[in-house]
């Protein structure tokens, strides 16, 4: 079944407008647990309390504030917050293009497929142009009272719009000191590189499965039928030998693995 669009708008480049629809590219598969009151085996509820008196504060009396100094709050009323709501618009404005590899992974947040809403020729032509040029567009838009910055990219033959985090939200390793400790020795480095080369391959997302999710689900199903599956105890493990020895042992065993894989 086709997914429902979450938003409708236009991609706007210069004076060109391409009508599009947005679809979530993510399918949530997390196992949803409820938090229960252990005694009553009922769902819990949440409320706000004054931690000093323990008294409940009803929602309509709750105010929002920002702590400017310890114990000093600037109160923000609903009308203040409403003023921060950006002006509504249906345009996804693209004014700049950058190389498709210039934004580090930590900036990408949520991906949305962009689908054509009418003019298919223009839609597929733009996707092809971005793919050929290996570029992505920096997009700005307002959706559901929020302003977003995103990257418009080619994903195969289609267009993908990924929301981007702001620079404030991403910690950069450039602001951190390099870890303490001595630099690795040449010999160790050579061996470690040899090891990594042996493990080198192409990234294939299909190779990785969330096996744990499946185990939890199977466990829940068994329990639902009244079984009580036995589970192993968690063991802690012990330490090992020198780096040098471990590296050469690793290389040996990997080579052996590869040899037997080839002869099989």
């Amino acid at each position, binding site marked *: 079944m086709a997914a429902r669009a979450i938003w409708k708008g236009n991609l706007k*480049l210069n004076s*060109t407008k391409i009508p599009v629809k947005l679809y*979530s*590219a*993510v*399918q949530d*598969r997390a196992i949803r*647990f409820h*938090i*229960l009151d*252990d005694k009553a*085996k*009922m769902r*819990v509820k949440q409320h706000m*309390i004054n931690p000093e008196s323990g008294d409940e*504060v009803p929602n309509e009396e*709750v*105010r*929002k504030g*920002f702590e400017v100094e310890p114990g000093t709050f*600037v109160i*923000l*009323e609903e009308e203040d917050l409403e003023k*921060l709501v*950006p002006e509504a618009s249906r345009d996804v404005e693209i*004014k700049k293009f950058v190389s498709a590899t210039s934004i580090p*992974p*930590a900036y990408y947040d949520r991906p949305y497929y962009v*689908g054509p809403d009418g003019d298919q*020729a223009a839609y597929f*032509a733009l996707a092809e*142009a971005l793919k050929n*040029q290996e570029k992505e*567009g920096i997009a700005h838009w307002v959706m559901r009272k929020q302003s977003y*910055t995103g*990257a418009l990219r080619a994903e195969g033959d289609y267009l*993908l719009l990924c929301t981007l985090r*702001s620079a404030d*939200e991403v*910690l950069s*390793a450039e602001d*951190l*000191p*390099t*870890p303490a400790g001595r630099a*690795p020795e040449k010999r160790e*480095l050579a061996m*470690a*590189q040899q090891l*990594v080369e042996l493990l*080198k391959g192409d*990234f294939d*997302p299909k190779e*990785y499965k969330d*096996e744990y999710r499946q185990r939890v689900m199977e466990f829940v199903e068994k*329990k639902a039928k009244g079984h009580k599956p036995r589970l*192993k105890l968690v063991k802690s493990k012990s330490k090992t030998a020198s780096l040098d020895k471990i590296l050469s042992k*690793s290389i040996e*065993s*990997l080579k052996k693995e590869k040899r037997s894989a080839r002869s099989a």
Partner: protein
Amino acid sequence: MPAVRKTRRKPATDHEEQRGARPFWSGTLTFGLVSVPVDLYPGNRNARTPLRMLGPDGVPLSRRYYSQKTEKDLDADDMIRGYEIEKDKFVLVTDDELERLAPEQSRDIDLRSFAPLEQIAPIYFDRSYFLVPSSGSEKAYKLLAETMKKSKLAGIATFVMRGKEYLVTIFPENGILRAETMRFSDEIRTPKDVGLPEKKKVPASAVKKFETVVKKHSARSFSLKTLKDERAENLRKLIARKKASKKNVVHVEVPEREEGKVVDLLDVLKKSLAGKKKAA
């Protein structure tokens, strides 16, 4: 954040994410037979203007779970996780069971595969973390970081952390290992799943037209600093204005909150990277 997390600790306060100097997870990173004990810290932070919920008199409030039956507040020990099999019927699952369900080898980040980072499309990336050597593992840590930098490869692995399995790619950045969690392939829809139309042949002239636009507006360099959160900025400005006008400002007595103190993540990371001073 996985839904599972909620009952693992004390009920979450409004902006718990910003708090606490403890690592999010501690474990072992392995490649070959080399094991590197590491601490994992968040590499993303929420917009820096968290609003607090206050009472009518300005007292900061706490969010609490309470029982529908007794209407009394509940502590972490009074709560359990339940999976709803039919309406209002739950299968109970404890923290201990969830922990035991993870096979032993899945509790380490075992780098069994390395690939160029550029091969991973942004559609996969979810959240960012830093791996910091825990005391004693600096040597092996630096060796792995340096090796990946030299070979221009990122390590890929799956591991179970706090009741959820993660697919992760690890690569060095300024000598520090960044761990980027990724969505599993079954968590990503295909254009076909979504119902996007099949591509039709597009006239070369139409493609050329867009290529010209793209070229014309291509920035030679791009500063990440230009990626801004407009709302957060406007909020900060509004707060500054209100503070200066002295209207709508309340003062309350707050007890020393050691546990609840807002800590800057960057400071926490700097401290852990400086290496723990061993007692003489």
